[in-house]
């Protein structure tokens, strides 16, 4: 999958995975807080859903910057593995969740044959990731045992959170990074450079 990748793209992918693994772990703490606040009403599990998009964000950033098949999937997978290395109590299970989430995002880019990175495709990736990861949690975390309406509300919250945080915030962060000029050697930076040249001409 990574045969036609440059080494620096792979190292960037790995380092993004490591950086976001830390952010994912911190988000875990925020999620715990929200869960705690909602527990008295019996809707604790919703706490995570509000910020679920955070755990998908590296897929969008990596895919949007590097623009090669596999970027979304591998970066998310690396973030999962690194969380285990750092010592997330969710343990190796996390690697499966990460793979499922990565596949969700990757499938959206596969639909457009890894050619199209406009906002609408990023949003599609966010929606697919939310749905596919939800299906996995439906099985592994026993959402099956909740009433149907609560499952519905959780799914919708996850989709919205995923669109806002994963797609829109992810794109914004990548564009800001491209503006600093550090991405000159990567696909997104080159696109920004082209746009600037056109504006100047």
């Amino acid at each position, binding site marked *: 999958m990574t045969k036609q990748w440059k080494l*620096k793209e792979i190292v960037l992918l790995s*380092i993004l*995975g490591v950086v976001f693994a830390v952010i994912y772990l911190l988000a875990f703490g925020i999620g715990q807080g929200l869960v705690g606040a909602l527990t008295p009403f019996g809707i*604790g*599990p919703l706490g995570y859903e509000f910020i679920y998009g955070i755990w998908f964000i590296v897929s969008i950033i990596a895919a949007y910057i590097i623009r090669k098949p596999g970027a979304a999937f591998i970066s998310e997978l690396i973030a999962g593995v690194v969380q285990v290395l750092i010592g997330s*109590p969710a*343990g*190796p299970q996390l690697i499966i969740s990460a793979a499922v989430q990565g596949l969700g995002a990757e499938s959206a880019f596969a639909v457009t044959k890894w050619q199209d990175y406009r906002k609408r495709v990023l949003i599609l990736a966010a929606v697919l990731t939310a749905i596919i990861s939800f299906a996995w949690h439906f099985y592994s975390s026993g959402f099956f045992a909740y*009433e149907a309406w609560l499952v519905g509300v959780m799914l919708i919250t996850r989709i919205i959170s995923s669109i806002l945080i994963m797609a829109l915030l992810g794109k914004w962060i990548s564009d800001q990074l491209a503006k600093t000029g550090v991405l000159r050697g990567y696909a997104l930076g080159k696109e920004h450079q082209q746009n600037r040249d056109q504006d100047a001409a």
Partner: protein
Amino acid sequence: MLPMISAINPTVKAIAVLIPGILLGLTFDVFTPLVYLLFIISVTFLLSDLSFKRWIKFFVPFFLFIASFSWARLLYTSETFQDGSVLFSFWAFEVTTGGLLVAVSLALRSLCFIALSLLFIMTTDSTKFMLSLMQQLRLSPKITYGVLAGYRFLPTFKHELEVLRQAHRVRGVGRAKGIRGRIRQFKRYSIPLLANSIRKAERVANAMESKGFTGEHDRTHYHQMTVTKRDWRFLGMMVGALFLAFVASYYFGYLNIFGYQVN
């Protein structure tokens, strides 16, 4: 003689923890996860020199978190599990024995996940785990060493954050007020930190290439990770015990797969 957990090949160990983790998702009865949880805890302490104090420090916070999820399951149990008599009422909620049983079952399942995870992370060296993923699962060396390099950079982030904060202070940028200020502050910290790590990634890649790193699998290793018979024995033990738990559960008439009472 059973092997010590810390000496098990990390990849095999991860698989030995993953398979039961996936299969446990099938059960909705109390008996199966309870038996397996007791098994994991005994394995943890019989086959490693982990101190109970360190283990429990990780385990307890998750207890509270799982309690929250179980409480939700208790109040919003799906109809599949709404059988049995009403135990008690809370506001507009009626808790039935069926609901209570499934909430306890899922709580025990989550405790199994956490016990399995602790078993893994507390006995595994992270570098060796990466090396083993490369040597046993043929993870690309480019990714392996990229991740190890990134992992090595983690401690420097704290220092960089401190430098950024001082740089802001020198230029008279104070703490942010209000939501807009917070957003601007988020940008002021996150973008430079990420930009720095991207620069580092590029420098590391250049350094690797200049030292003749090709990223081919055909290379020598300083740490040779191997899989031996005792690794397979460990895998067999972890998965076999779960099957025994399933069989025992079936034998005693408890087994419940996805709300469907078997036998």
